[in-house]
């Protein structure tokens, strides 16, 4: 209990630090620490799946994205000076609003009614029918497969928009830097290990914590690492392969989801007797696709290097 209060306090303190720190770089670093603390919190909330995802995505990938973006936005002196002007009226209103929201949320949380249905029980009862033994995987890919399907679609849309913005700029290949011989030697060991961890996470997802999302995050981290260290990624320059890789998860999901529909059943109900096989196939495709999607989100960000120079005249 004391540990929980301490952790909650550290979480709030780090969040306040993210918002209050003047130095933007420090703020981003605090934000990454916040992500790591969130991973610890998920362990305490007894959600190891979320802890895995948060550590890989929330702290790892988001941190890399923010640091990368920060490196490309030169410290804008003009904006920094403007920032100093305060608007007492607006600030006061914002404080009142935040205080009100806090109060309302607090009241709502304390007085929240007992829910009418007992979800964990229902999940337990139906778990056998889903074909997998891990309740979270069952919820994601069987009971609420619709959510997962739409989620993949949403990410695909985000990636398409990101890539469209990137391709409309005059593009140049990111400079491949050979950083250090030690890194190169280490990657020979690390990359296969990461691949193994990703496959392991995917496999145990059917009966323990883990699954497509966590595996995809590890896969994406692997690709980002390869990209940043200048290791060639097989098939990377082939645009068609990339596009096929991006949609294969969603495509297979839709295809297998419609099999039962064709034979007169429901959309996204896996064919009877083949539940586990279908879920595993879809999860495998999703892992690959989501890994590529997350990596593409990282890749979509590099802007041309001249950006800072061309804008020098305007500012």
């Amino acid at each position, binding site marked *: 209990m004391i540990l929980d209060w301490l952790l909650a306090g550290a979480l709030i303190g780090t*969040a306040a630090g993210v918002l209050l720190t003047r130095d933007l770089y420090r703020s*981003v670093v605090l934000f990454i620490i*916040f992500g790591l603390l969130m991973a610890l919190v998920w362990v305490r909330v007894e959600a190891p*799946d979320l802890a895995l*995802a948060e550590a890989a995505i929330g702290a790892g990938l988001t941190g890399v994205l923010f640091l990368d973006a920060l490196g490309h936005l030169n410290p804008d002196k003009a904006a920094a000076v403007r920032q100093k002007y305060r608007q007492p009226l607006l600030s006061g209103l914002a404080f009142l*609003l935040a205080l009100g929201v806090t109060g309302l949320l607090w009241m709502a949380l304390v007085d929240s009614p007992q829910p009418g249905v007992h979800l964990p029980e229902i999940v337990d009862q139906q778990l056998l029918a889903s074909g997998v033994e891990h309740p979270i995987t069952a919820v994601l890919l069987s009971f609420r497969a619709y959510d997962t399907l739409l989620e993949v679609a949403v990410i695909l849309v985000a990636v398409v928009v990101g890539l469209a913005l*990137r391709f409309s700029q005059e593009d140049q290949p990111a400079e491949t830097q050979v950083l250090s011989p030690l890194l190169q030697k280490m990657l020979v060991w690390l990359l296969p290990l990461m691949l193994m961890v990703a496959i392991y996470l995917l496999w145990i997802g059917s009966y323990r914590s883990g699954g497509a999302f966590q595996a995809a995050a590890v896969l994406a981290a692997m690709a980002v690492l390869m990209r940043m260290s200048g290791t060639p990624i097989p098939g990377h320059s082939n645009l068609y392969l990339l596009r096929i890789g991006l949609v294969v998860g969603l495509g297979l999901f839709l295809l297998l989801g419609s099999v039962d529909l064709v034979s007169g059943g429901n959309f996204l109900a896996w064919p009877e007797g083949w539940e586990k096989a279908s879920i595993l196939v879809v999860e495998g495709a999703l892992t690959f696709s989501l890994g590529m999607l997350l990596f593409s*989100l*990282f890749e979509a960000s590099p802007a041309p290097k001249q*950006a800072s120079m061309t804008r020098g005249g305007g500012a």
Partner: protein
Amino acid sequence: MNTFFIYALTGGLLSSLGLLGFILHRHLLRRLMAFNLMGSGCFLILTGLSQSHQGVDAVPQALVLTGIVVAVSATALALVLIRRWYHLTGQTSLPEDVQSLEKTSSKEAQG
């Protein structure tokens, strides 16, 4: 009060803290971070509150798992847009905000 409920309350505080930062900050990167804090707060409320009633529950956990992945893709997209905006205008904040700031600052200078 159990462990889960502590984190639900923490999530509530985080959400309003993020909201405050989202309103007050001008820099787009900071706004994005504040927005992410709000999101984390929502995730905590979602899991913490339902589990404080019913014990460990796979449904909100699975929903939050999707939420985390969607949040990171939304963040990445926002970062692409912010960088595009910076590339085009050299600004790291939106013109509406800057205008309103300049107005008030000129008023202050007159007064």
